[in-house]
C-alpha cells in the first residue's frame, strides 16, 4: 500500500494534529459538515451499509447493520458508546487514533450519532489511558467551543454531548454488555443476550456500541463514498485495518494496510522480519484470544473470512509474533494466567475452568507434569467453549485448545517426569 492509500493514519506525522486548528487546516470536520448539512440520516446509513464497514474491535459485525437495528421510533433516549477499552492483549491501535487524532474520532461520533438520532455519546476508555482521556476531554472542549459539539451543531439543529468515561482495569469491560454495566456504575458482568444493546442497552435504552477504529472510518466513507471504501479493502470487508505488530520483529508498531494484505508480508516486509538470530515459530493473528497459527500457516490474507477459514480470527488486528526460542508451555502459562485473572466470575465454566487449566499449566512449568495433563486441559477447555454468557469463555478456550493441539509434541515433553 502506498502512503497515498492510507487514510486513518496518513496525518499522524503532523505536529499538533490533536489540536482543532491543525485538524481543520487538514480537512477536518468536512465530513461532518457534509453529513449534517447535505445528507439525511437514511442516506448515511445506506452509505455505511454499502461500505461493508465491519467492526474493528474483534467480532467484525457490520457497523451499518448494527445501526439499522436501533428502533427509529422510540420515546426513550438513544445512546452511543465508543469502545475504547482496548484490553485485548497485543492491541494498541486505538491509542494511536485517540492520541494523534482525537478530532477524527469526534467527527466519526458526530456523524454516527446524527445518523442514528443520538444526542448522548460516551467514550469508554481503559483506565490506564488517563493521559489520552485528558487529551480527548480537551478536544471535546475545543470542538464544543467551535460549534462542532453541543447544541445546534453547525446550525443543523442537531445536538450532541460527548462524555469521556474511564474504566478501572478490567478486561471484561471491553465486552459490550459488560461495558454498559460498567458505565452504569456496576461491576463489569456481561448481560444475557438477547435483548441486544440496539434495543435494550445503556440505562435500558437503545444503544449503539462501536470500537474507536470503526467510528474513525466513518468520516472517510462519508467523504469518499462506499464504492471507494470497498475498493481500498475487499468488497465484503471494506477499508483498511490498523494492524499492531509486537514480539521479536525488527519494527514492532502499527501498520495501516488494506484488508486482504498477506500476514507474511505484514511480518516480513512491513514489520521488518524477525530480529537478528530469531526464527519464527508461531503467530497469534488477532489479539490473545485468536487461536495460534504455526510458522507454516501464515501464508494467508488478513481479512475476516480467511482467518476464520484458517481456524483463527482477525479479532482486533493485533499480531503477536513468537520466536523459536520461546517455550509454548510459557505461552500457555501466560494465556491461561490472563484469562484466569480476567474472568469476571459470573459463569462457572469460565471462573472455575480457566483457573483449573492455569493451575495445571503452572504445575507443568514447575516440572510436576502428569501423563494425562494435556487431555485434561483439552477436556476443560472444551467444557468452557460455548457454555458462557459472554465470549470471554471462548476467548480463553480457543487459544488454549489451539496451542495444545498444534504444539502437542513439544508440550508432551513437559508432562514427562
Amino acid at each position, binding site marked *: 500500500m502506498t502512503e497515498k492509500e492510507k487514510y486513518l493514519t496518513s496525518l499522524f506525522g503532523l505536529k499538533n494534529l490533536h489540536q482543532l486548528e491543525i485538524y481543520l487546516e487538514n480537512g477536518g470536520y468536512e465530513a461532518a459538515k457534509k453529513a449534517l448539512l447535505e445528507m439525511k440520516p437514511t442516506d448515511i446509513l445506506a452509505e455505511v451499509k454499502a461500505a461493508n464497514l465491519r467492526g474493528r474491535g474483534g467480532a467484525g459485525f457490520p457497523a451499518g447493520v448494527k445501526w439499522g437495528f436501533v428502533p427509529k421510533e422510540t420515546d426513550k433516549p438513544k445512546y452511543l458508546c465508543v469502545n475504547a477499552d482496548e*484490553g485485548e492483549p497485543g492491541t494498541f491501535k486505538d491509542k494511536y487514533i485517540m492520541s494523534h487524532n482525537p478530532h477524527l474520532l469526534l467527527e466519526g461520533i458526530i456523524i454516527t450519532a446524527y445518523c442514528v438520532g443520538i444526542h448522548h455519546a460516551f467514550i469508554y476508555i481503559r483506565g490506564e*489511558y488517563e493521559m489520552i482521556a485528558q487529551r480527548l476531554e480537551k478536544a471535546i472542549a475545543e470542538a464544543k467551543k467551535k460549534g462542532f459539539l453541543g447544541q445546534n451543531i453547525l446550525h443543523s439543529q442537531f445536538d450532541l454531548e460527548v462524555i469521556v*468515561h474511564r*474504566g*478501572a482495569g478490567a478486561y471484561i469491560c471491553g465486552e459490550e454488555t459488560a461495558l454498559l454495566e460498567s458505565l452504569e456504575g456496576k*461491576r463489569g458482568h456481561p448481560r444475557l443476550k438477547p435483548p441486544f444493546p440496539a434495543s435494550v442497552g445503556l440505562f435500558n435504552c437503545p444503544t449503539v456500541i462501536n470500537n474507536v477504529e470503526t467510528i474513525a472510518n466513518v468520516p472517510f466513507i462519508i467523504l469518499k463514498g462506499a464504492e471507494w471504501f470497498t475498493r481500498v479493502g475487499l468488497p465484503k470487508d471494506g477499508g483498511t485495518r490498523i494492524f499492531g505488530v*509486537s*514480539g521479536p520483529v525488527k519494527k*514492532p508498531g502499527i501498520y495501516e494496510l488494506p484488508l486482504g494484505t498477506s500476514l507474511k508480508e505484514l511480518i516480513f516486509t512491513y514489520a521488518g522480519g524477525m530480529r537478528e538470530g530469531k526464527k519464527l515459530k508461531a503467530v497469534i493473528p488477532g489479539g*490473545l484470544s485468536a487461536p495460534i497459527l504455526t510458522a507454516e500457516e501464515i501464508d494467508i490474507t488478513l481479512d475476516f473470512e480467511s482467518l476464520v477459514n484458517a481456524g483463527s480470527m482477525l479479532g482486533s488486528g493485533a499480531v503477536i509474533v513468537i520466536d523459536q526460542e520461546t517455550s509454548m508451555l510459557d505461552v500457555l502459562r501466560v494465556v491461561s494466567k490472563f484469562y484466569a485473572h480476567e474472568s469476571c466470575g459470573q459463569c462457572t465454566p469460565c471462573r472455575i475452568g480457566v483457573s483449573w487449566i492455569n493451575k495445571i499449566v503452572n504445575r507443568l512449568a514447575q516440572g510436576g507434569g502428569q501423563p494425562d495433563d494435556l487431555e485434561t486441559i483439552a477436556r476443560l477447555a472444551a467444557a468452557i467453549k460455548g457454555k458462557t454468557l459472554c465470549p470471554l469463555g471462548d476467548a480463553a478456550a480457543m487459544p488454549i485448545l489451539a496451542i495444545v493441539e498444534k504444539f502437542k509434541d513439544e508440550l508432551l515433553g513437559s508432562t514427562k517426569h
Partner: protein
Amino acid sequence: MSSLSPETKNKIAAVVKRYPHKQAALLPVLHLIQNEIGFIPEESQAWVAELLDLQPARVKEVVTFYTMFLEKPIGRYHLQVCSNLSCTLAGANDILNYLIDKLKIKPGETTADGRFTLTTVECLGACEHAPCMMVNCDYYGQLTPAKIDEILDGLE
C-alpha cells in the same frame, strides 16, 4: 467527607451532573477520590454510597472488582510491570526479577520507606514498546536494567 479538598468535591459534583442517572458516576467519582487520597478508604466508600444513593455493599463490590481501585495505601510510586505475552516475549520476567532484586520486595509489596510499590499487571496496551511498565500514570517501554535505574533515579 471532610478529608477531601474543596477542589475534588467540586469536581465530584460536576461529574455527577454529567450522567442521566447519578449512579453511573460511581467509577469517575472513585477515580477522583483515589487521585486525591491515593486509595479508597472505607469511610470514603460510605460517603460515596450516600452521595449516589447506593447501598454501601454496591460501592464495595465495585471497588473490589476493578484492579485499579485500591483499598489500602501504597507507595508513592506504583510500578506496574506488564506480564502479558508481548512483554514476556521481550523479557518481562527478567525485568520483574531485576526490580525484585533492586527494591528487595516481591510483587504486591511496598518498600519500607514507602517510596515504591511493585505489582504485575496484565496487558497495558503498549506492546510495541515491550517490555513495559507504568509508574503511576506514565508509561515506560523498551525496559532494560540500565533504563530502570535511570527511571527510578529520576524520581523524587
